[in-house]
């Protein structure tokens, strides 16, 4: 299987995605942002369509759209929790509308669109992998710098107000690196299913372990398992990799909920 360069690339990319998603996912869950992540995936699709239309790579189009929309969401919703969901709906609706427009204007055949939406293993070149490495390193470096303040702001927003963590700045920075992570992850699982990797592994991990760093470790583990095993099953069966990854992660989540239920019954 690894004699094919596209499989090597897919595994390299998948491993990177799993690491970034496992770590970022813990904050996505703590900050209660699965909806934002889901919307960013769709906005990523629109960005890719825009990229194709103006002759950029889809990844650069995605980065542009997801970053701009993240900043808009952060600025417009501020600290008002109840407004955030509506702001996300408005902004993602607008950007997805734009995406559909660009897709129809660019006259590309629809297989291009399905690749973006559902992911494609074959589509990943060495250069894509290189760009993903750079983006992932940027995300991880930024996380390293803001880690403690982001952790406090995510897991104890009330307490963080008196800890001088610069909550507003932290929120915007987090949204921007979330946009980067979404764009990276979209390369393999497709923009429709990025939120699978950015939410489910971390959402599962929290039932088994109770420190931020261990949740990240376990989240990475769950994501890696899904990506590696999904790629293998896709290779063997010729069915879409995305289907396997989504199914594996959903199954892990279902098992985690079951485990939590059983534990609460015995306590």
């Amino acid at each position, binding site marked *: 299987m690894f004699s094919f360069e596209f499989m090597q690339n897919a595994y390299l990319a998948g491993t990177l995605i799993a690491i970034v998603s496992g770590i970022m996912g813990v904050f996505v869950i703590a900050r209660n942002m699965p909806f934002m992540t889901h919307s960013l995936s769709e906005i990523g699709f629109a960005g890719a369509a825009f990229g194709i239309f103006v002759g950029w790579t889809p990844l650069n189009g995605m980065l542009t759209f997801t970053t701009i929309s993240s900043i808009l969401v952060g600025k417009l919703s501020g600290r008002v929790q109840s407004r955030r969901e509506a702001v996300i709906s408005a902004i993602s609706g607008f950007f997805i509308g734009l995406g559909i427009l660009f897709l129809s204007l660019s006259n590309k055949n629809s297989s291009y669109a399905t690749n973006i939406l559902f992911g494609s293993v074959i589509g990943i070149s060495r250069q894509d992998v290189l760009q993903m490495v750079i983006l992932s390193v940027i995300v991880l470096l930024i996380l390293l710098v803001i880690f403690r303040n982001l952790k*406090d702001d995510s897991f104890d927003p009330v307490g963080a107000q008196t800890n001088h963590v610069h909550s507003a700045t932290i929120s915007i920075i987090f949204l921007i690196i979330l946009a980067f992570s979404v764009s990276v992850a979209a390369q393999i699982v497709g923009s429709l299913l990025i939120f699978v990797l950015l939410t489910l592994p971390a959402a599962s991990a929290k039932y088994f372990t109770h420190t931020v760093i261990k949740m990240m470790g376990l989240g990475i583990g769950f994501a890696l398992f899904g990506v590696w095993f999904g790629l293998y099953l896709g290779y063997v069966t010729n069915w879409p990799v995305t289907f396997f990854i989504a199914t594996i992660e959903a199954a892990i989540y279902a098992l985690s909920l079951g485990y939590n239920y059983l534990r609460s019954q015995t306590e």
Partner: protein
Amino acid sequence: MSDILISCENLSLSFPNHQVLSDLSFQLHRGDFLGVIGENGVGKTTLVRLILKQLRPSGGHIRLAPGLKIGYVPQFRNIDVEYPLSIRDFIGLSFTGLKLPWLSGKEKNRVNEVMKSVGLTEIADRPLGLASGGEKQKAYLAQALINHPDLLILDESTASLDPSTKKELLDVVLRLNNQLGLTILFVSHDMQLIREYPKHYLWLQKDHYETGKIQDLPEGAEEGLYV
């Protein structure tokens, strides 16, 4: 640091359509245990927010001793049953700043130290979401102590607890006050606790206030609060 941690002179705060605090003057001395009482809406939490510099006074002054470190236990927190962090990890959240993700040995020792001082050592690794109301309050208290504050502010921290848990928590606070000389500002509705623990009181009322030694708190104060 001087002996006066907080000094208010003619402090006033008005929101667009109503005055919350007017002409409030008092001093908080190091080592004091001050109980702040008053009906809803007279400005207890507003006073706390002025001390925390989350609000600016519209008149008068509030002066904090230079370098004053404040530990704050807020009124509300949304910690539900699925909150994943252990009590130990939750307390460590307050080590913020641009530092390495994992806590240093010194920081871990400090977490152990504050857990011991509030009596959480035995359940340190249990998820906070599964802790009882009293255990949660102790964890909030421990977290507020982590950076060696000079002043601890408790804003209605006991409101949701049953009577014996309230006393247990305040016994811990009183011990910190007696043994470490930690200054306490305790905001509460509970007159029984106010008469039992603080050394001084600050009774905020509409348009005026009273302050003094706790034994001089008028007998009628209870009725004033509950009508």
